[in-house]
């Protein structure tokens, strides 16, 4: 590992840190993540499905860049960051840096990796030990790695305190006596103590006031220029990421759906999820004349993610079977909602009594599902067969829904969901999409609509919103 020469005060930045340029592709990868998986098993005797926090992601982090990692809460961003650092042991896959496979390191090489890669934590209130002075906190990594003499370590701590914009008299203060922004500076100084090359910044500003956020972000950018650092910047705040990141990876339910240069992704999102996510930034969905694309519902449970595309349950551009091409948008809304309800019911009924009742043929909630269908499609399955043309469904579609409801009334929600998906599902529900390269800079997006067979996601969304408006 080429350790950058002077730790501080030396303005000579290593090459290639001058922002979001197109030559990014030529930079060497510093960290390569390959098919990384992290599942959390429940302990206990009755283990259910594991929580698939990170489910097979692959990407490179290039030397000197800032890679933004965005996604909704609970999509696995933090777990991914922690697994890359080795704080969590990966279930499968590998993280390779400089020929070292991080998960299998031990002894001297592990110590080296722990020196080269550091983390800044989300909550500056929780990541600093209140019983230690600021000086002790920042010095601790140096003590742990026994770098230099005691006096040298102390001098280095003063350098770091100065570097992150704190005062020297803060050395003997306790974290209690600092504001959130100052505490985060302490956390950053601690992460810098060992002169790392790579830092995982786990939502480093999301706990701070907006005015303080900007200063900490500027500090991080200055440090990157000065020390030639590589950042993995985890955030759910899309505008912060746009500001700081060279490239951005969009994560959904343990999977990276789109990865590319920040400006390209923000100006022309390729993946339907990115489209929806960017559209959710208040007052910022300019660029297209499209209406706000709303994300319906919440992400499915990572314990039982959808087969096929993870985003299929909420996707505004999901491929639909040709047989139902003429169904109106309201009907699709209803079908998606029904699918969500069935999935939720299926995952809920783990209770012993529910299982007993089902095996006795006593479906407890037959009426509930009728109510749901009545709400969604305007006809009550429990009553006589409806008139043709009543509700938004065509007769074939209604037959399929009735099939599904029949199972659901018996409490077999899983089968019901399967029947529904059999009728209305498509390639999106069956196959996990590959990452397709979507532009000249090597941007990738994991959506089947990037193949020639289908319209592009943007076109599909536009068309559907246009139909809705009619």
């Amino acid at each position, binding site marked *: 590992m080429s350790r950058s020469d002077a730790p501080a005060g030396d303005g000579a930045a290593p090459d290639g840190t001058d922002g979001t340029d197109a030559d990014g592709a030529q930079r060497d990868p510093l960290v390569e993540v390959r098919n990384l998986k992290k599942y959390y098993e429940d*302990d206990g005797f009755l283990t259910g499905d594991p929580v698939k926090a990170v489910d097979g992601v692959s990407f490179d982090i290039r030397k000197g860049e800032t890679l933004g990692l965005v996604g909704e809460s609970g999509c696995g961003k933090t777990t991914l960051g922690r697994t890359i650092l080795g704080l969590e042991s990966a279930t499968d896959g590998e993280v390779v840096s400089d020929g070292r496979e991080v998960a299998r390191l031990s002894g001297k090489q592990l110590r080296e990796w722990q020196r080269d890669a550091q983390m800044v934590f989300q909550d500056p209130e929780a990541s600093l030990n209140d019983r230690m002075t600021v000086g002790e906190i920042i010095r*601790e990594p140096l003590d742990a790695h026994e770098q230099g003499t005691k006096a040298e370590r102390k001098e280095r701590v*003063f*350098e770091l305190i*100065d*570097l992150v914009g704190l005062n020297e008299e803060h050395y*003997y203060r*306790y974290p209690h006596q600092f504001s959130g922004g100052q505490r985060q500076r302490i956390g950053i100084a601690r992460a810098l103590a060992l002169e790392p090359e790579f830092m995982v910044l786990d939502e480093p500003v999301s706990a701070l006031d907006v005015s303080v956020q900007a200063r900490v972000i500027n500090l991080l950018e200055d440090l990157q220029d*000065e020390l030639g650092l590589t950042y993995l910047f985890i955030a759910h705040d899309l505008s912060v990421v746009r500001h700081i990141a060279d490239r951005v990876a969009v994560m959904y339910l343990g999977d990276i759906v789109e990865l590319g240069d920040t400006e390209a992704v923000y100006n022309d999102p390729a993946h339907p999820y990115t489209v929806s996510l960017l559209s959710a930034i208040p007052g910022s969905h300019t660029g297209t004349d499209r209406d706000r694309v709303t994300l319906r519902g919440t992400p499915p449970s990572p314990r039982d993610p959808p087969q096929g595309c993870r985003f299929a349950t909420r996707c505004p551009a999901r491929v639909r079977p040709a047989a139902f091409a003429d169904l109106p948008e309201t009907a699709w809304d209803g079908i998606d909602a029904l699918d969500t309800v069935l999935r939720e019911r299926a995952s809920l009924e783990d209770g012993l009594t529910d299982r007993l009742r089902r095996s006795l043929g006593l479906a407890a909630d037959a009426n509930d599902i009728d109510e749901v269908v009545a709400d969604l499609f305007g006809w009550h399955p429990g009553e006589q067969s409806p008139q043709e043309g009543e509700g938004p469904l065509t007769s074939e579609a209604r037959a399929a829904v009735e099939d599904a409801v029949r199972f659901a009334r018996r409490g077999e929600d899983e089968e019901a969901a399967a029947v529904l998906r059999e009728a209305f599902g498509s390639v999106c529900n069956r196959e996990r999409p590959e990452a397709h390269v979507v532009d000249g800079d090597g941007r990738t997006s994991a959506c089947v609509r990037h193949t020639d067979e289908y319209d592009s996601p943007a076109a599909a969304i536009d068309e559907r919103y246009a139909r809705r408006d009619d």
Partner: protein
Amino acid sequence: MSSLTGSESVLAEADADPLTDRLLAHPRPAVIWGGVAALLLLVEAGALAEVSLRLLADLVGALPGVGDAASVAALADAAGGVPTLLSRETIPNQGYWNGSAYVGTFLGLQPAWAWLIRVALVYAYAFACLLWVYVGFEWYRTHYRVADWTPRDDTVDRLRGHRWGLFGLAVVFMFVTMAVFAPALGPTTVDQNLANPYSHQISYWTGSEVATSPVGDANLGSRSQGNAQTNVGPWSYDDFGRFHPFGTLPSGKDLFTFIAAGSRISLVIGLLSVGLSAGVATVFALLSAYYKGRVDDGLILLSDSVMGMPQLLLLIMLSVVLAGTWIGNLYSGAFVLALIFAGTGWPYMWRSLRGPALQVSEQEWVDAARSFGQTPGTIMRKHMLPYITGYLLIYGSMTLGGAIIAIAGLSFLGLGVDPPTPEWGRAVNAGQEYVTTASWHISLIPGALITLVVTGFNAMGDGIRDAIDPESDSAEGEAGGRGGGA
């Protein structure tokens, strides 16, 4: 905002100096403090040397086949000859009336006054020591500490304003002083009055002349047995001119001397057992919180097994089995008792500490330390232990009260510390048939003292808890200590 130039990095060298430099720069408070320390030490130097040498002699004697106990004991005797301010030789209270004046008492005062002066001096000395420690802390804080504020400052300030806690602290302070200065506090000595009464003579005024008699015979004449004729109550003289602040036992022995000596053994067993079990409990709590999983499961299994053992039966069995062995004889059997208390008591404390330890182990700063490769041992010591020491103090002080009750309860049942070594519970037992008579003091005084001391330890625990964590509620059921015992 962020000044990244680094050129203006002027190290605050004065701040970075080690403590010795700061002392030299401003020596006055330190010199005064050190002078007081020397003075306090000087007046008790002989006693201090004697006590430490005698402990050494005991240890050498107890361990089979090691060293020469006799020579160490001789050394201790020599040290005992050095005059000290608070010894009974300097302020004697044992004398006799020769018809016109007191002979052998301090300044010719009545024995009661002489004794009272000595007791007052002992407590004044102990209080001076306490004050010296506190002033030392305050001066260090104002003159020498670099940090102008630490989290511990708030703890001390809160404890200072906590009345119930201060009451507990005062009671514990009185109790500890009594235990430490037990030989100087008694109106007579354990050896003379309790252990070997027939090897000592006393002089007394018969009403017409000064006569001598063995202490044992005098004891027979000063018994407290419930009726007005044979009773020596609190704060009174017996027929031999001896002063008894707490009255006498049914055997005629002095109750105050008995209690003072007994407080020592209670404190030693209490401290030893709580110290050992707290040590084991802390280490196990840190291990199970840091490693979780299998380690935690294993420790749960182990502690449940220990908790499943009947403590009292184990105690009886072990005291029979170990009776007569060298370890069983150590400190009249008190050492074995402390070991058994520690061995059976740690799971309770471990259970109480495990929760807080698990909570701390989930904190992000522990993750942060792991991320830069801090070793598990250091993480446990630096990042977890400071957060459970508060709980340790609370549970420790409350368990100590419980241990004192347990020892007294065992002695009451005739188990535990071997007679004739004084133990509070045995005094309660000895007096139980006289509770409703004129000799009520025999059971009541030690009983009330046990209650007071245990309450004091619990109050101190409460005070420490509130001082450490101002948001905690006093109504925490778990922290009940190990009351009851036998």
